Protein backbone atom coordinates (compact mmCIF):
# COMPACT_ATOMS: atom_id res chain seq x y z
CA UNK A 1 0.00 0.00 0.00
CA UNK A 2 2.84 2.30 0.99
CA UNK A 3 4.51 1.64 -2.36
CA UNK A 4 1.32 2.36 -4.22
CA UNK A 5 0.99 5.74 -2.50
CA UNK A 6 4.61 6.62 -3.30
CA UNK A 7 4.15 5.56 -6.92
CA UNK A 8 1.02 7.67 -7.20
CA UNK A 9 2.80 10.70 -5.77
CA UNK A 10 5.73 10.21 -8.16
CA UNK A 11 3.42 9.81 -11.15
CA UNK A 12 1.46 12.88 -10.13
CA UNK A 13 4.68 14.84 -9.77
CA UNK A 14 5.81 13.71 -13.22
CA UNK A 15 2.50 14.67 -14.74
CA UNK A 16 2.68 18.13 -13.18
CA UNK A 17 6.29 18.48 -14.33
CA UNK A 18 5.35 17.46 -17.84
CA UNK A 19 2.49 19.90 -18.05
CA UNK A 20 4.74 22.69 -16.82
CA UNK A 21 7.68 21.92 -19.11
CA UNK A 22 5.40 21.27 -22.08
CA UNK A 23 6.69 17.73 -22.56
CA UNK A 24 9.64 15.55 -21.61
CA UNK A 25 9.67 14.24 -25.16
CA UNK A 26 12.16 15.68 -27.64
CA UNK A 27 11.06 18.45 -29.93
CA UNK A 28 10.88 16.80 -33.32
CA UNK A 29 11.85 19.14 -36.17
CA UNK A 30 9.27 19.80 -38.88
CA UNK A 31 9.86 18.14 -42.24
CA UNK A 32 9.40 19.59 -45.69
CA UNK A 33 7.49 17.73 -48.38
CA UNK A 34 4.32 15.68 -48.20
CA UNK A 35 3.26 14.05 -44.96
CA UNK A 36 3.47 10.26 -44.68
CA UNK A 37 0.10 8.81 -45.70
CA UNK A 38 0.44 6.23 -42.92
CA UNK A 39 0.80 8.94 -40.30
CA UNK A 40 3.71 9.97 -38.15
CA UNK A 41 2.98 7.55 -35.30
CA UNK A 42 3.21 4.59 -37.68
CA UNK A 43 6.56 5.77 -39.00
CA UNK A 44 7.94 6.49 -35.55
CA UNK A 45 7.26 2.90 -34.56
CA UNK A 46 8.04 1.12 -37.82
CA UNK A 47 10.64 3.15 -39.74
CA UNK A 48 13.47 0.74 -39.01
CA UNK A 49 11.53 -2.27 -40.30
CA UNK A 50 10.35 -0.44 -43.41
CA UNK A 51 13.87 0.71 -44.18
CA UNK A 52 15.32 -2.73 -43.57
CA UNK A 53 12.81 -4.35 -45.88
CA UNK A 54 13.37 -1.85 -48.65
CA UNK A 55 17.15 -1.89 -48.29
CA UNK A 56 17.15 -5.62 -49.09
CA UNK A 57 14.92 -5.04 -52.11
CA UNK A 58 17.30 -2.37 -53.38
CA UNK A 59 20.55 -4.13 -52.58
CA UNK A 60 19.63 -7.68 -53.60
CA UNK A 61 17.06 -7.18 -56.34
CA UNK A 62 17.97 -3.74 -57.63
CA UNK A 63 14.53 -2.26 -56.97
CA UNK A 64 15.34 1.37 -56.39
CA UNK A 65 11.87 2.90 -56.55
CA UNK A 66 11.01 1.70 -53.06
CA UNK A 67 8.72 3.55 -50.70
CA UNK A 68 11.32 3.99 -47.99
CA UNK A 69 14.73 5.23 -49.05
CA UNK A 70 17.18 6.77 -46.62
CA UNK A 71 18.09 9.45 -49.17
CA UNK A 72 14.49 10.62 -49.17
CA UNK A 73 14.37 10.51 -45.36
CA UNK A 74 17.28 12.90 -45.04
CA UNK A 75 15.99 15.09 -47.86
CA UNK A 76 12.56 15.87 -46.37
CA UNK A 77 13.78 15.74 -42.78
CA UNK A 78 16.81 17.98 -43.29
CA UNK A 79 17.44 20.40 -40.42
CA UNK A 80 19.32 23.57 -41.25
CA UNK A 81 22.11 24.71 -39.00
CA UNK A 82 23.23 28.25 -38.21
CA UNK A 83 24.88 28.52 -41.65
CA UNK A 84 21.49 27.73 -43.28
CA UNK A 85 22.89 24.47 -44.61
CA UNK A 86 21.58 21.02 -43.59
CA UNK A 87 23.43 19.63 -40.58
CA UNK A 88 25.07 16.21 -40.67
CA UNK A 89 24.43 13.47 -38.14
CA UNK A 90 27.40 14.80 -36.15
CA UNK A 91 25.13 17.61 -34.96
CA UNK A 92 22.71 17.02 -32.10
CA UNK A 93 20.06 18.87 -34.12
CA UNK A 94 20.01 16.25 -36.90
CA UNK A 95 16.49 14.92 -37.33
CA UNK A 96 17.42 11.31 -36.61
CA UNK A 97 19.52 12.17 -33.60
CA UNK A 98 16.81 14.16 -31.83
CA UNK A 99 14.87 10.99 -31.00
CA UNK A 100 17.76 8.54 -31.10
CA UNK A 101 19.71 10.52 -28.51
CA UNK A 102 16.59 10.68 -26.36
CA UNK A 103 16.03 6.92 -26.64
CA UNK A 104 19.79 6.16 -26.42
CA UNK A 105 19.66 4.06 -29.59
CA UNK A 106 22.75 4.13 -31.77
CA UNK A 107 22.23 4.83 -35.48
CA UNK A 108 24.51 2.80 -37.74
CA UNK A 109 23.01 3.97 -41.05
CA UNK A 110 25.26 6.98 -41.42
CA UNK A 111 28.51 5.08 -41.18
CA UNK A 112 27.92 4.33 -44.86
CA UNK A 113 25.01 6.56 -45.94
CA UNK A 114 25.19 10.30 -46.24
CA UNK A 115 23.20 12.10 -43.55
CA UNK A 116 22.45 15.24 -45.57
CA UNK A 117 20.32 15.65 -48.70
CA UNK A 118 22.12 14.31 -51.77
CA UNK A 119 23.89 17.00 -53.77
CA UNK A 120 22.39 15.54 -56.94
CA UNK A 121 18.88 16.49 -56.01
CA UNK A 122 17.53 14.57 -58.98
CA UNK A 123 19.13 11.30 -57.95
CA UNK A 124 16.97 10.39 -55.02
CA UNK A 125 13.77 11.93 -56.28
CA UNK A 126 14.09 10.37 -59.72
CA UNK A 127 11.89 7.44 -58.74
CA UNK A 128 9.54 9.36 -56.54
CA UNK A 129 6.15 7.93 -57.29
CA UNK A 130 3.28 10.22 -58.14
CA UNK A 131 1.07 10.19 -55.08
CA UNK A 132 -2.69 10.35 -55.24
CA UNK A 133 -3.68 13.98 -54.59
CA UNK A 134 -6.63 13.05 -52.35
CA UNK A 135 -4.43 10.68 -50.36
CA UNK A 136 -1.85 13.40 -49.85
CA UNK A 137 -4.50 15.94 -48.78
CA UNK A 138 -5.99 13.50 -46.29
CA UNK A 139 -2.55 12.72 -44.90
CA UNK A 140 -1.83 16.43 -44.63
CA UNK A 141 -5.06 17.12 -42.74
CA UNK A 142 -4.36 14.14 -40.51
CA UNK A 143 -0.87 15.47 -39.90
CA UNK A 144 -2.27 18.87 -38.89
CA UNK A 145 -4.69 17.33 -36.41
CA UNK A 146 -1.87 15.48 -34.66
Amino acid sequence: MKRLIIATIVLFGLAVGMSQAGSVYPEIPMASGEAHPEGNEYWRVNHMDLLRHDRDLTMREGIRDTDASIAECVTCHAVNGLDAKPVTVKSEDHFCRVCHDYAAVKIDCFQCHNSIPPELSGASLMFKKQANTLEVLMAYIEGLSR
Partner: protein
Amino acid sequence: MNIPKSSPTGGCGGGCPTKEKGADLHRRDFLKSGAAMATVTLAPGVTLMSMGSGVAAAANPDTRWGLLIDAAKCPSDCSACVTACSDEHGWENNGEPTDPQWIRKVTLKNRDTGFENSLPVMCQHCANPPCVDVCPTGASFKREDGIVLVDRHTCIGCRYCMMACPFKARSFVHEPVTGQKVTTPRGNGTVEGCNMCVHKLDRGEGTTACVEACKITGNNAMIFGDLNDAESDISKALANYPSIELRADLKLNLGVRYQNI
Protein backbone atom coordinates in the same frame (compact mmCIF):
# COMPACT_ATOMS: atom_id res chain seq x y z
CA MET B 1 5.84 -38.26 -5.30
CA ASN B 2 6.47 -34.82 -3.93
CA ILE B 3 4.51 -32.18 -5.82
CA PRO B 4 4.98 -28.56 -4.74
CA LYS B 5 1.77 -26.79 -3.82
CA SER B 6 2.41 -23.82 -6.04
CA SER B 7 5.31 -23.08 -8.33
CA PRO B 8 6.59 -19.54 -8.97
CA THR B 9 5.50 -19.82 -12.58
CA GLY B 10 1.85 -20.12 -11.71
CA GLY B 11 1.54 -23.90 -11.51
CA CYS B 12 2.41 -24.91 -15.04
CA GLY B 13 6.06 -25.71 -14.43
CA GLY B 14 7.56 -23.00 -16.55
CA GLY B 15 5.42 -23.86 -19.55
CA CYS B 16 3.08 -20.93 -19.34
CA PRO B 17 5.49 -17.99 -19.57
CA THR B 18 7.27 -19.55 -22.55
CA LYS B 19 3.97 -20.13 -24.25
CA GLU B 20 2.86 -16.57 -23.64
CA LYS B 21 6.15 -15.26 -24.90
CA GLY B 22 5.83 -17.48 -27.97
CA ALA B 23 2.36 -16.19 -28.69
CA ASP B 24 3.56 -12.64 -28.25
CA LEU B 25 6.43 -13.13 -30.69
CA HIS B 26 4.11 -14.73 -33.15
CA ARG B 27 1.76 -11.79 -32.99
CA ARG B 28 4.64 -9.40 -33.51
CA ASP B 29 5.94 -11.36 -36.49
CA PHE B 30 2.46 -11.39 -37.94
CA LEU B 31 2.22 -7.61 -37.69
CA LYS B 32 5.68 -7.29 -39.18
CA SER B 33 4.86 -9.47 -42.16
CA GLY B 34 1.70 -7.43 -42.69
CA ALA B 35 3.75 -4.28 -43.00
CA ALA B 36 6.13 -6.01 -45.38
CA MET B 37 3.34 -7.23 -47.61
CA ALA B 38 1.86 -3.77 -47.85
CA THR B 39 5.18 -2.51 -49.14
CA VAL B 40 5.48 -5.35 -51.64
CA THR B 41 2.01 -4.86 -53.04
CA LEU B 42 2.81 -1.21 -53.58
CA ALA B 43 5.97 -2.02 -55.50
CA PRO B 44 4.58 -3.45 -58.78
CA GLY B 45 2.46 -0.36 -59.45
CA VAL B 46 5.46 1.83 -58.79
CA THR B 47 7.63 -0.24 -61.12
CA LEU B 48 5.09 0.06 -63.91
CA MET B 49 5.06 3.84 -63.55
CA SER B 50 8.84 3.94 -63.67
CA MET B 51 8.93 1.69 -66.73
CA GLY B 52 6.67 4.17 -68.49
CA SER B 53 9.28 6.89 -68.02
CA GLY B 54 12.00 4.77 -69.61
CA VAL B 55 13.42 3.23 -66.43
CA ALA B 56 14.36 -0.44 -66.75
CA ALA B 57 13.24 -3.02 -64.24
CA ALA B 58 15.53 -4.37 -61.54
CA ALA B 59 18.08 -7.20 -61.64
CA ASN B 60 16.97 -9.42 -64.50
CA PRO B 61 18.00 -13.11 -64.43
CA ASP B 62 17.99 -13.23 -68.26
CA THR B 63 20.74 -10.62 -68.38
CA ARG B 64 24.42 -11.07 -67.66
CA TRP B 65 26.30 -7.80 -67.65
CA GLY B 66 29.86 -7.96 -68.89
CA LEU B 67 32.83 -5.92 -70.04
CA LEU B 68 35.26 -6.46 -72.87
CA ILE B 69 38.59 -4.67 -72.65
CA ASP B 70 40.93 -4.41 -75.62
CA ALA B 71 44.45 -4.05 -74.18
CA ALA B 72 45.80 -3.03 -77.60
CA LYS B 73 43.67 0.12 -77.49
CA CYS B 74 44.56 0.97 -73.87
CA PRO B 75 47.54 3.40 -73.69
CA SER B 76 49.84 3.04 -70.69
CA ASP B 77 49.63 6.75 -69.85
CA CYS B 78 45.81 6.85 -69.73
CA SER B 79 43.87 6.27 -66.54
CA ALA B 80 40.60 7.94 -67.47
CA CYS B 81 38.59 4.88 -66.37
CA VAL B 82 40.17 4.92 -62.91
CA THR B 83 39.50 8.65 -62.47
CA ALA B 84 35.92 8.27 -63.71
CA CYS B 85 35.26 5.43 -61.26
CA SER B 86 36.74 7.42 -58.41
CA ASP B 87 34.55 10.41 -59.27
CA GLU B 88 31.43 8.33 -59.77
CA HIS B 89 31.69 6.43 -56.50
CA GLY B 90 33.54 8.92 -54.33
CA TRP B 91 36.60 6.87 -53.40
CA GLU B 92 40.08 8.27 -53.40
CA ASN B 93 43.40 6.52 -53.87
CA ASN B 94 46.44 8.48 -52.76
CA GLY B 95 48.88 5.65 -53.37
CA GLU B 96 48.79 4.26 -49.82
CA PRO B 97 48.73 0.45 -49.69
CA THR B 98 45.43 0.51 -47.77
CA ASP B 99 43.65 2.97 -50.09
CA PRO B 100 40.58 1.76 -51.99
CA GLN B 101 41.11 0.25 -55.45
CA TRP B 102 37.85 -0.38 -57.24
CA ILE B 103 39.71 -0.33 -60.54
CA ARG B 104 43.44 -0.01 -61.23
CA LYS B 105 45.78 0.12 -64.19
CA VAL B 106 48.07 -2.89 -64.40
CA THR B 107 51.16 -3.21 -66.59
CA LEU B 108 52.02 -6.65 -67.92
CA LYS B 109 55.52 -7.26 -69.23
CA ASN B 110 56.73 -10.18 -71.27
CA ARG B 111 60.10 -10.93 -69.68
CA ASP B 112 61.44 -12.62 -72.83
CA THR B 113 60.56 -9.97 -75.37
CA GLY B 114 60.15 -6.89 -73.18
CA PHE B 115 56.70 -6.19 -74.67
CA GLU B 116 54.48 -4.25 -72.28
CA ASN B 117 50.70 -4.22 -72.03
CA SER B 118 48.61 -1.80 -70.01
CA LEU B 119 45.09 -2.64 -68.94
CA PRO B 120 42.51 -1.84 -66.27
CA VAL B 121 41.66 -4.59 -63.76
CA MET B 122 38.60 -4.55 -61.54
CA CYS B 123 36.16 -7.06 -60.09
CA GLN B 124 35.77 -9.66 -62.83
CA HIS B 125 32.18 -10.48 -61.80
CA CYS B 126 32.69 -14.26 -61.88
CA ALA B 127 29.78 -16.58 -62.53
CA ASN B 128 31.26 -18.78 -59.77
CA PRO B 129 32.69 -16.14 -57.43
CA PRO B 130 35.12 -17.39 -54.73
CA CYS B 131 34.33 -14.30 -52.63
CA VAL B 132 30.72 -15.44 -52.36
CA ASP B 133 31.81 -18.98 -51.42
CA VAL B 134 33.92 -17.82 -48.49
CA CYS B 135 31.72 -15.04 -47.10
CA PRO B 136 30.58 -16.10 -43.60
CA THR B 137 27.60 -13.73 -43.46
CA GLY B 138 26.22 -13.83 -46.99
CA ALA B 139 27.20 -10.20 -47.51
CA SER B 140 29.18 -11.06 -50.63
CA PHE B 141 26.62 -12.11 -53.20
CA LYS B 142 25.89 -12.36 -56.89
CA ARG B 143 22.89 -10.51 -58.22
CA GLU B 144 20.50 -12.16 -60.67
CA ASP B 145 22.10 -10.24 -63.54
CA GLY B 146 25.59 -11.52 -62.72
CA ILE B 147 26.92 -8.51 -60.80
CA VAL B 148 28.94 -9.49 -57.73
CA LEU B 149 28.35 -7.10 -54.85
CA VAL B 150 29.05 -6.58 -51.16
CA ASP B 151 25.99 -5.97 -49.00
CA ARG B 152 27.54 -3.64 -46.46
CA HIS B 153 24.52 -4.06 -44.21
CA THR B 154 25.72 -7.56 -43.41
CA CYS B 155 29.47 -7.24 -44.10
CA ILE B 156 31.44 -7.71 -40.87
CA GLY B 157 34.76 -6.71 -42.45
CA CYS B 158 36.46 -10.09 -42.01
CA ARG B 159 38.17 -9.71 -45.39
CA TYR B 160 37.92 -13.41 -46.31
CA CYS B 161 36.66 -12.31 -49.73
CA MET B 162 39.77 -10.20 -50.26
CA MET B 163 41.88 -13.27 -49.57
CA ALA B 164 39.78 -15.46 -51.84
CA CYS B 165 39.72 -13.11 -54.84
CA PRO B 166 42.35 -14.13 -57.43
CA PHE B 167 42.31 -10.61 -58.90
CA LYS B 168 42.81 -8.51 -55.75
CA ALA B 169 39.67 -6.72 -56.83
CA ARG B 170 38.37 -5.81 -53.40
CA SER B 171 39.61 -3.36 -50.82
CA PHE B 172 38.79 -2.62 -47.21
CA VAL B 173 37.72 0.76 -45.85
CA HIS B 174 40.10 1.53 -43.00
CA GLU B 175 38.94 5.02 -42.07
CA PRO B 176 35.56 6.59 -41.29
CA VAL B 177 34.02 8.01 -44.48
CA THR B 178 31.94 11.16 -44.78
CA GLY B 179 30.28 12.89 -47.72
CA GLN B 180 29.41 9.70 -49.59
CA LYS B 181 27.59 9.81 -52.90
CA VAL B 182 23.91 9.01 -52.56
CA THR B 183 24.25 6.22 -55.11
CA THR B 184 27.35 4.69 -53.50
CA PRO B 185 27.10 4.32 -49.75
CA ARG B 186 30.43 3.17 -48.31
CA GLY B 187 31.82 3.11 -44.82
CA ASN B 188 34.46 2.15 -42.34
CA GLY B 189 34.97 -1.54 -41.57
CA THR B 190 33.45 -2.97 -44.71
CA VAL B 191 34.84 -4.42 -47.93
CA GLU B 192 34.11 -2.84 -51.30
CA GLY B 193 34.85 -3.30 -54.95
CA CYS B 194 33.62 -2.58 -58.48
CA ASN B 195 29.82 -2.76 -58.54
CA MET B 196 29.56 -2.30 -62.32
CA CYS B 197 27.80 1.01 -61.65
CA VAL B 198 24.78 -0.93 -60.54
CA HIS B 199 22.85 2.28 -59.80
CA LYS B 200 23.24 3.37 -63.42
CA LEU B 201 22.09 -0.04 -64.68
CA ASP B 202 19.06 0.00 -62.38
CA ARG B 203 18.24 3.46 -63.73
CA GLY B 204 18.31 1.95 -67.22
CA GLU B 205 21.40 3.80 -68.46
CA GLY B 206 23.00 0.54 -69.61
CA THR B 207 26.58 1.76 -69.24
CA THR B 208 29.27 2.30 -66.63
CA ALA B 209 31.36 5.32 -65.66
CA CYS B 210 34.65 3.72 -66.81
CA VAL B 211 33.28 2.78 -70.25
CA GLU B 212 31.87 6.26 -70.80
CA ALA B 213 35.20 7.84 -69.81
CA CYS B 214 37.06 5.50 -72.17
CA LYS B 215 34.75 6.53 -75.01
CA ILE B 216 35.39 10.20 -74.29
CA THR B 217 39.17 9.72 -74.57
CA GLY B 218 38.56 8.24 -78.03
CA ASN B 219 40.43 5.03 -77.23
CA ASN B 220 37.24 2.95 -77.14
CA ALA B 221 39.09 0.16 -75.39
CA MET B 222 36.08 -0.92 -73.31
CA ILE B 223 32.72 -2.34 -74.38
CA PHE B 224 29.91 -2.85 -71.90
CA GLY B 225 26.83 -4.97 -72.51
CA ASP B 226 24.69 -8.01 -71.97
CA LEU B 227 26.64 -11.24 -72.53
CA ASN B 228 23.36 -13.17 -72.86
CA ASP B 229 22.08 -10.98 -75.68
CA ALA B 230 23.52 -12.25 -78.98
CA GLU B 231 22.73 -8.89 -80.63
CA SER B 232 24.68 -6.76 -78.13
CA ASP B 233 27.96 -5.13 -79.19
CA ILE B 234 29.91 -7.09 -76.61
CA SER B 235 28.49 -10.47 -77.72
CA LYS B 236 29.23 -9.68 -81.37
CA ALA B 237 32.80 -8.65 -80.54
CA LEU B 238 33.32 -11.79 -78.47
CA ALA B 239 31.92 -13.95 -81.27
CA ASN B 240 34.10 -12.38 -83.97
CA TYR B 241 37.46 -11.81 -82.28
CA PRO B 242 39.62 -13.87 -79.91
CA SER B 243 39.39 -12.98 -76.23
CA ILE B 244 40.57 -14.42 -72.96
CA GLU B 245 39.55 -14.52 -69.32
CA LEU B 246 42.17 -13.76 -66.71
CA ARG B 247 43.21 -16.91 -64.87
CA ALA B 248 41.02 -19.05 -67.13
CA ASP B 249 42.52 -22.08 -65.37
CA LEU B 250 40.36 -21.33 -62.32
CA LYS B 251 37.21 -21.86 -64.43
CA LEU B 252 35.37 -19.00 -62.73
CA ASN B 253 33.57 -17.91 -65.93
CA LEU B 254 34.30 -14.20 -65.72
CA GLY B 255 32.03 -11.36 -66.73
CA VAL B 256 35.06 -9.26 -67.74
CA ARG B 257 36.97 -10.41 -70.81
CA TYR B 258 40.20 -9.14 -72.38
CA GLN B 259 41.58 -8.95 -75.89
CA ASN B 260 45.16 -8.69 -77.13
CA ILE B 261 47.02 -9.68 -73.98
